[in-house]
């Protein structure tokens, strides 16, 4: 195969080329476990009494961006969804919808990333599917992953368990993925620009099992950012949330690009962050455990739960107060 070979429509036709695609790209990376022999489905040992099950589809432009690619996202996204439900991720499915013309070199890099990310998270790609669509019918590559994990028995999670005085914790800087992709999409060639935080939060969840019921709720602030997650938590309730602008963890590059484009970093996606609401008395201990892990080194308390009926409010650096609203529609850069 030449260095600039691309996927053809015939690679999805079910014939010899399909076989070639699977044997060259899929089997060497994923063919040793339940996928050995390419059965129609995976037969798996039950990981526990209670399962956590989720699915997510990934469409991102560009496919490769500073800090990662769609392959990393497809693993981390589903692993993180399982984790924030209090699950211990075990198995993934991997479905690829490839647009005719995608270079094999790009596909190979992305699948390498899927394998590396899955290994790092301790999950196995157990089943999968590949389709090829005609040029113009896809954005290079769409990926869907579904995931299964066992539920940790220690957690009792739910927004209804959140109480006044609880703390809102996060494991690092906010909005890095959203700003990295936005910069890459517009070919803004920054030196030291924003870098995606794509990563797994499963070890952070594992680290707080001991706190059991003191952990009220967990969520990964992806699309819509932290502002959306916090607003959803308190919408229509007697409770609110107070954030302190001084305490917001923002990477300098992300903050600079967000300022330039007029985007609120609280509205930008993170792909390796865990928002956790916990009892105030446990917050310091949780932060200490998180900070011992590389993915939790930047962990902080962002704010507290108040009685401010359904509102997320920020105390600004100047001492004023303002509403933190959800983003509306697509994030658009401003005119001047």
């Amino acid at each position, binding site marked *: 195969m030449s260095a600039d070979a691309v996927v053809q429509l015939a690679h999805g036709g079910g014939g010899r080329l399909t076989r070639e695609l699977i044997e060259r790209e899929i089997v060497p990376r994923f063919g040793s476990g339940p996928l050995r022999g390419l059965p129609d489905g995976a037969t798996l040992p039950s990981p526990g009494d209670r399962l956590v099950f989720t699915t997510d589809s990934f469409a991102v432009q560009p496919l490769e961006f500073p800090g990662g690619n769609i392959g990393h996202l497809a693993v981390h996204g589903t692993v993180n969804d399982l984790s924030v439900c209090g699950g211990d991720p075990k198995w993934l499915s991997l479905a690829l919808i490839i647009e005719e013309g995608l270079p094999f070199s790009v596909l190979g890099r992305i699948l390498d990333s899927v394998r590396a990310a899955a290994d790092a998270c301790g999950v196995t790609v157990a089943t999968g599917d590949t389709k090829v669509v005609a040029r113009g019918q896809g954005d290079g590559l769409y990926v869907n992953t579904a995931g299964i994990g066992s539920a940790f028995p220690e957690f009792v999670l739910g927004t209804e368990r959140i109480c006044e005085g609880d703390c809102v914790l996060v494991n690092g800087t906010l909005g890095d993925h959203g700003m990295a992709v936005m910069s890459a999409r*517009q070919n*803004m060639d920054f030196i030291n620009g924003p870098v995606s935080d794509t990563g797994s939060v499963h070890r952070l969840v594992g680290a707080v099992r001991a706190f059991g019921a003191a952990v009220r709720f967990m969520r990964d602030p992806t699309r819509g950012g932290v502002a959306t997650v916090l607003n959803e938590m308190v919408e229509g309730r007697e409770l609110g949330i107070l954030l302190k602008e*001084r305490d917001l963890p923002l990477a*300098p590059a992300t*903050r*600079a690009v967000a*300022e330039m*484009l*007029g985007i609120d970093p609280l509205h930008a996606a993170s792909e390796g962050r865990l928002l956790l609401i916990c009892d105030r008395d446990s917050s310091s201990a949780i932060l200490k455990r998180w900070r011992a892990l590389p993915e939790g080194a930047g962990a902080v308390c962002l704010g507290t739960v108040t009685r401010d009926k359904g*509102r997320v*409010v*920020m105390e*600004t*650096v*100047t*001492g*004023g*107060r*303002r*509403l933190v*609203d959800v983003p*509306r*529609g697509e994030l*658009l*850069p*401003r*005119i*001047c």
Partner: protein
Amino acid sequence: MNYIDGFRDPDVAAQFVRLIAEQGRELAANGRHMHIMEVCGSHTMAIGRYGIRQLLPANVELISGPGCPVCVTDPGYIDAAIALAGQGAILATFGDMIRVPGSDSDLTECRSAGGSVEVCYSPSAAVDLARNHPDREVVFLAIGFETTIAPVVSLVGEAQSAGVSNLSLLTAFKLVPPALRALLTDKEIKIDAFLCPAHVSAIIGSKAYEPFAAEFHVPCVVAGFEPLDILYGVHGILGQALKNEASVENQYARVVRSEGNPVAQARIAKYLEPVDASWRGLGVIPASGLGLRPEFAAYDAEKKLGVPVRPGRLHPGCLCGEVIKGKLRPTSCPLFGKACNPDHPVGPCMVSAEGTCAAYFKYGLPGERQGGGK
């Protein structure tokens, strides 16, 4: 970002708030209430974002002005853009234009219906689009105040030197000083001082406001967009008011010079000439806009493609015009937050990233002090 942090210092902010409170008390002792218009939409947003209104004394009100280029654009302009897309043109635009209502539709609906609408972060992207689509006309939606005009109009030169002939501009450029004059001569609007725009002033220079200080006796202070800039600007205005003075002060001297930016001014004069312009809310103001000079007609979308901008129809209940003039506080509009919200905007002030209604909706805390127009 360390540079920026200096202009957001909480301790210095607290000191300014104390000084402004003292000035407010002194003015109140003389029965004075100050209506300060922040002209620029970026000021409006920064004031909301940092919660600055609540930090000011009750007799010092910040009123939002007409300085949002999207908000003052006539709906007929959007109608013309949609018509051009219908003819097969690719529309290249800054992001916050795409949800501004025209008479019947907006550019997002146009895009969903198959129209080509490309959001650009930089005007130069339009030249690339034209190069990549040599068989189609690319129309750049050229709106904006002085800040935006020079880089946008430079597209004409870029296209000329690159030999790109399938690029044109649909212009609705507007100038700030004629709008300020229109507001000051409107007897129904009470303006005691202007917090003058930051980046517009970088182009036109702080001396552009001297006639207003002299003729209308209103203090004019040019201020940057950071919270300390704004507080410092308000402090300067109140200082003048206490001494019954009215002059132009340039608080934003790190960027703005008295004479402005002569390179940008020359660039603007090379390509553009004054035209009468229709402002939403303010109506037609003579010589308040800029259009392409006749020798650049080949880049003038209206002339080149035969699609003239005609006055559009406003939503009957929309009071954006009153908001733009500072006569109405957004929260006093019957549509605000109900029929008109960022998901379903009725008027442009709710759409734009710099719109007054959007700022109130996004940052305002009902039940807490809002300030704003009457």
